[in-house]
């Protein structure tokens, strides 16, 4: 995996800006600081499905698409959206409910909690939970971070942080698309906040979610062939390019905010 690149000048600027931001924060009572300043374990305990709440598995439910199936036509056709949401996502939901039907103790956990520590899940259903709870969480995030009036340049805090970390939006997009192209087989490409608190591009196989590695997924694109095959066939690169036309930067900004250790 290629990791993030830091442009030296913007990185310096970033440090200066952060210093100013920190200086403007109200003083924190000493007791509220985490005992160790370095890697912030808090990142891994934040809700991931939605910025303000975790995803229930008692029972798991298919969230409605937040827009019409044809609304993202600038990148994704209506038939693909319908099959992807109504059948693929539904199947992950059905499979997780089926796997947990005799497991009241596991059902009580959020999907995030299961994926953060799969050892809490009995071994006999661990792989099924990993695949299907992962599929449920990933797709729940995916529908939200796209919008009919999305696309264009990023705005707000994420725009600044992207520039600071990757040098420019163009450079970020290039690295994100390359990571999506390089994922062999089925999987996802993500922008995450890693356990060190930095933005990073990662890709995961199948339905694994970065939360299992202690990172917070801010935005992700699905590079399973089912996400693009009806319209783009073998041209994954074209799909990756067009996808930026529907990115919901408002939602990505909400997730950026939510990814900050508290």
């Amino acid at each position, binding site marked *: 995996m290629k990791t993030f690149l830091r442009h030296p000048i913007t990185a310096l600027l970033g440090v200066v800006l952060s210093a100013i931001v920190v200086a403007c924060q109200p003083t924190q009572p000493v007791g509220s600081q985490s005992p160790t300043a370095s890697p912030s374990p808090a990142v891994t305990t934040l809700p991931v499905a939605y910025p303000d709440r975790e995803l229930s598995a008692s029972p798991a439910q298919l969230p409605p698409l937040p827009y019409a199936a044809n609304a993202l036509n600038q990148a994704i056709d209506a038939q693909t959206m319908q*099959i992807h949401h109504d059948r693929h996502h539904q199947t992950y939901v059905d499979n997780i409910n089926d796997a947990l039907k005799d497991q009241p103790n596991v059902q009580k956990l959020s999907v995030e909690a299961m994926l953060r520590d799969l050892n809490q899940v009995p071994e006999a259903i661990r792989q099924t939970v990993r695949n299907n709870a992962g599929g449920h969480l990933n797709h729940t995030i995916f529908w939200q971070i796209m919008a009919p009036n999305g696309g264009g340049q990023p705005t707000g805090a994420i725009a600044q942080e992207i520039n600071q970390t990757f040098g420019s939006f163009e450079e970020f997009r290039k690295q994100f698309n390359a990571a999506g192209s390089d994922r062999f*087989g*089925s999987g996802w490409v993500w922008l995450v906040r890693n356990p060190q608190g930095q933005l990073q591009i990662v890709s995961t196989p199948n*339905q694994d979610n970065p939360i299992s590695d202690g990172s917070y997924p801010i935005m992700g694109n699905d590079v399973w062939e089912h996400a693009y095959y009806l319209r783009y*066939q*073998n041209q994954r690169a074209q799909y990756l390019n067009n996808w930026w036309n529907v990115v919901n930067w408002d939602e990505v900004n909400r997730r950026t905010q939510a990814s900050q250790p508290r």
Partner: protein
Amino acid sequence: MAFTQPALPFPKDALASSGMKEETFEYHYGKHHAAYVANLNKMVEGTELENMPLEEVIHTSFGDSSKTGIFNNAAQVWNHTFFWNCLSPKGGGAPSGELAAKIDAAFGSFDKFKEEFSAAAATQFGSGWAWLVEDSGTLKVTKTPNAENPLVHGQKPLLTLDVWEHAYYLDFQNARPAFIKNFLDNLVNWDFVAQNLAS
């Protein structure tokens, strides 16, 4: 010597009436398989792998983290060529002779074999392949992720089904079980499978 893509053993539209559209072959053979061949040639050009038999490239690169790309492309070249031969316009039905006897011995019956093979193909999560192999004289059903194949496990491949979504998405979309059933009912070239067993 560059690696080449063998011709399809039937016309692209030959399976259209048995569940695989011509369009599927235009992409699956014409684009996906062709791209694996082109990528492999690019990656091995000027290296010692360039003149090796394909099987040797697969063995040499497997498990070598500096050669993941070479392995993926080499194995996918091999897997797809093998897969085309597993298909026939006159496919389906049941095996006969020694193959049929070995299937009965290993699985109990042909129907039991079909159940086991279908389950392997349906449960390979993500991209991959389902196989019938001969392993130390016994027939077994296996599944492999992404490009991996039985050669690297010392098994003799007899039959395969590609369960990457690109193999069935234009014909069956998300309905992988229907694709698997159609393969077993209408497409399997049992003569090729018998030849592999005898070889």
